[in-house]
């Protein structure tokens, strides 16, 4: 985003908050919290606007041991790990799936459980493990794919 657009948005936020008392907004996602800190967004906000870190979503609160297990699987020759794009950036104890991929692990980003299913069909000589962590809304899609999954 350009500096001009950033300033424009900051001005709009200040204007919207101008007539209000104290405004509190909860960040619903851990990536929001990280982005806000990393980009110094708090310094652009008016005094009466306070950001509160929320509980985090199912993706960014995934237990490190699950990430570690997925990384371990992705490092095995016979296995491909497929998961959503936001999941690959969540850190475990030994880094993220994205970092493991950079070191040579087989990690595929898919944008749907169906794509993981397709990958499993295309890669018949390898096992595809779909790390299905996602929002509640992804659960039905995962369930719809499960009966078709090769066993």
């Amino acid at each position, binding site marked *: 985003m350009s500096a001009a657009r950033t300033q424009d948005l900051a001005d709009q936020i200040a204007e919207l908050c101008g007539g209000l008392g104290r405004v509190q907004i909860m960040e619903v996602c851990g990536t929001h919290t990280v982005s806000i800190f990393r980009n110094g967004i708090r310094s652009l906000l008016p005094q009466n606007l306070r950001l509160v870190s929320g509980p985090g979503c199912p993706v960014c609160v995934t237990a490190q041991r699950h990430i570690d297990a997925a990384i371990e699987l992705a490092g095995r020759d016979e296995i491909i790990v497929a998961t959503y*794009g*936001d999941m690959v950036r969540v850190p475990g104890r030994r880094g993220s799936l994205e970092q493991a991929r950079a070191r040579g692990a087989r990690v595929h980003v898919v944008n749907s459980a*169906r794509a993981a*299913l*397709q990958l499993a069909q295309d890669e018949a000589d390898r096992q595809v493990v779909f790390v299905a962590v996602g929002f509640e*809304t992804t659960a039905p899609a995962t369930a719809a794919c499960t009966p078709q999954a090769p066993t």
Partner: protein
Amino acid sequence: MCLAVPGKLVAVADTGSLTGRSGTVDMQGNRVEISLALTPDAAVNDWVLVHAGFAIQTLDEADARETWEYLKACYGDDLGSLQEAGGS
């Protein structure tokens, strides 16, 4: 990307998808293939909410257009990345 995005169903096929009924949605000019397994009643010209490759509900046109206005306001020229992002 934890967003569900509205699209207009422009084609429906009873087969061809690993999960049964499939469809093509138009999202601001981009055509995307999706599964209709979770919205068995969705028909051509319906608006559906698409999340992770699946239509998860139908919605009326006014709601769909309003949602797109918000998305455009938030993402501006970066809308392409919104549709391609592989998120949950």
